[in-house]
């Protein structure tokens, strides 16, 4: 098991190198001159443009730029963004907020998705089942920004239960609404995945055996049916964590959350190569770790899976 984990960590190295190279190249190939974004509507004098190019290594060819970036990275210096601020500081600022938001969204979709999915699966074809199916379909069909603005308007403005936007260093309660909005679509998927998986397993032989053995209904459902139904759900949740971390641009925009998604979005617009690569690399690492965790969970959920 330890050897397996070690090997998985070793795999991170090529993933890391490949990802930084690819992302750096993509940002490098974006059309438009990065100094044009810095200079704004008015433009700068040629002297200033030359100075900026030198400052941010923009006058170097792609390989030199990339190697300079890697060199900085290996000495734990992520460099500065186009506003002259250290990238490491920016990541340290925005990352905790997004992590909090993503974990809350993940908890929301996991707890409610699995609970609703379980009940729906157990009562297949009944009223509860049909109504959550319809509701989840609506949630999946309506774009997230519509849901977001709608909930912000209803709950934040009309009812005033919470402020429409979160403060700079958001508290748990402030993040509840954004987290629900962020997790809503995945919640619908988790619900549907759980439901299908439960329906499949509930008529499996081993469940009939367990019931025949005289086990209580509760034990059969929780230990035998639910646990075995969790594998596709856990896979989905693991992959979703990465998506929630980097893909919260819309939700962060609606609720004015100073998070990773928006920071990344701004950096892409400005062609801020080092900033984009640093954030994306960071997200990739999180994604890889989440997947590793999912793989380890498989072994726990299904004792037939062994890693050596």
């Amino acid at each position, binding site marked *: 098991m330890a050897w397996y984990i070690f090997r998985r960590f070793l795999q991170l190295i090529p993933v890391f190198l490949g990802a930084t190279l690819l992302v750096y190249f993509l940002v490098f190939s974006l059309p438009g001159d990065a100094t044009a974004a810095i200079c704004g509507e008015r433009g700068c*004098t040629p002297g200033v443009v*030359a100075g900026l190019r030198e400052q941010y290594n923009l006058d170097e060819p792609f390989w030199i730029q990339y190697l300079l970036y890697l060199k900085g990275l290996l000495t734990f210096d992520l460099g500065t963004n186009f506003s002259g601020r250290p990238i490491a500081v920016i990541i340290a600022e925005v990352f905790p907020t997004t992590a909090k938001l993503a974990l809350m969204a993940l908890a929301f979709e996991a707890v409610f998705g699995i609970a609703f999915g379980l009940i729906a699966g157990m009562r297949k074809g009944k009223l509860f089942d049909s109504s959550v199916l319809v509701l989840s379909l609506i949630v999946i069909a309506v774009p997230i920004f519509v849901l977001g603005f709608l909930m912000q308007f209803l709950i934040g403005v009309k009812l005033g239960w919470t402020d429409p*936007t979160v403060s700079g260093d958001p508290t748990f309660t402030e993040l509840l609404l954004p987290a629900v909005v962020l997790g809503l679509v995945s919640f619908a998927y988790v619900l549907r995945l759980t439901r299908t998986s439960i329906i499949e397993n509930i008529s499996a032989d081993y469940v009939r055996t367990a019931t025949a053995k005289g086990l209580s209904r509760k034990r059969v459902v929780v230990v035998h049916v639910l646990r075995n139904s969790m594998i596709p759900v856990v896979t989905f949740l693991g992959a979703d964590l990465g998506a929630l971390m980097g893909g919260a641009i819309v939700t962060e925009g609606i609720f004015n959350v100073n998070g990773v998604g928006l920071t990344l979005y701004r950096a892409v617009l400005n062609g801020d190569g080092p900033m984009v690569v640093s954030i994306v690399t960071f997200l990739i690492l999180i994604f890889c770790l989440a997947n590793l965790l999912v793989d380890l969970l498989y072994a726990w959920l299904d004792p037939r899976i062994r890693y050596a």
Partner: protein
Amino acid sequence: MRFARNSKILSVAAIAAFTLSACGGGSDEAATGENTDAVIVVDGSEPQNPLIPTSTNEVGGGAILDLVFAGLVSYDAEGAPQNEMAESIETEDAQNYTITLKEGKTFTNGDPVTASSFVDAWNYGAAAKNAQLSSYFFESIAGYDEAAAEGSTVETMSGLTVVDDRTFTVALSQPESDWPLRLGYSAFYPLPEGALADPATFGENPVGNGPYKFAAEGAWQHNQQIELVPNDEYEGPQEAQNAGVTFKIYQNDTTAYQDLISDNLDVLKTIPTSDIKNFKNDLGDRWIESPYAGNQTIAIPYYLENWDGEAGKLRRQALSMAINREEITDVIFNKGRTPAKEFTAPVLDGFSEDLPGSENLEYNPEQAKELWAEAEALEPYDTAEPLTIAYNADKGDHKTWVEAVVNNIKNNLGIEVSGKPYATFKEVRTEATEQTLTGALRSGWQADYPSLANFLGPIYTTGAGSNDAVYENPEFDAKVSEGLAAESVEAGNETMNEAQEMLLEDLPALPLWYQVAQGGWSTDVENVDFGWNGVPLYYAITGK
């Protein structure tokens, strides 16, 4: 502080609690006169650079600098200059200026404001080696060209001379009577001694001499808020009428608007496009529409075959007459813009709305067709290069009006036109700078200082930095120089308007409309007014 209060918990328990606590909300101060103890929360955007006056070229940082620093002069609500640090600015030939400072002015760290505070800051701003974004503001000063040339290591401009602690002289490279008007712009602010030794650090916690100062070290919480408190040492026309201004940084206006209507934000300077139709209803009497010195145009580069020469000129006029400015400003902007009559803006001194040639900006589809036919007779329109109007889709909301203009032209001239969105601002700017655009470009100007010349010189003179149309007209250049060299700004304005007549004839760009600031405020504040440049007069806002 208002928005730091705990949000009510969004949970089942809180729903129950809500009904009980709801009565406790709201303001319990009676509405008595002016309350100067209120901290005003306003919307802002993240400054893009360290807060050094010469490296700030966008509104987010500009709004902060304008409160933290005071220049030689500042502008009143109408844009008229009023002395701040300057005791007098004197000249006899509009080329050599002697500037005397008031006595006893200090920065908030106790350092005196001296002649060197200005001269050193300006030299730093101009020198190419410092790569300051606003460097071109010093271009009129003698010696600028040497200091600002690419790769130059010259650190000072020969035109600036310190006479004594309170006096310095400025020699311009040519006479410019409107030069003193520029001195209220942020690039010309002074810096305390030592600021430039480590600009990045200074820019995080700037020390100024203006009506406000940073509330504390680290008051700039990046992408979140910037907290300013009044500077008690400051004496001048912009004295704070409140107990502080906190800029809350928003990523988009729509979100800020939600905060405004639920009283979590006191002042919003731009109503988002999506709420243009309903903000007057939502806000009752708590809104303002205030014209400011900015305009919107469509620049048509002369390097496009179809739009050059005599036929090109006729086509430009036809295009301009085919656009129904009145209707677009009414319908799309809900009267939040006013149709353009010339190339500058109505709040400026010297503005005139009936210059000869302004009929070229009036909607006249019949004459547009005639002019187009005339042009066709001279030189047929190359339909292989249909007209496009380029705009950036990442900032600002240009799509709607560009489409409206496109439809106007299509319907009235029967030619093929389309909007051409670019994903990012930098992309379209790069093409404009490299002169590789394949069509027209949405453009516009917001005044840096209240002067007609600011709308003409930097955009339409040969080789000017923002001359995206690549307009080259020696007669126009001469007129602008003549206007600048006039003995007074008033005399110069007349010459400027003569220069404008050439523009109205040639139409290097099609002026569309003038900008109007549309803003709103919460139930907690009053005395909200906007200045000549569309920025709220933050210092004058009071609580209720």
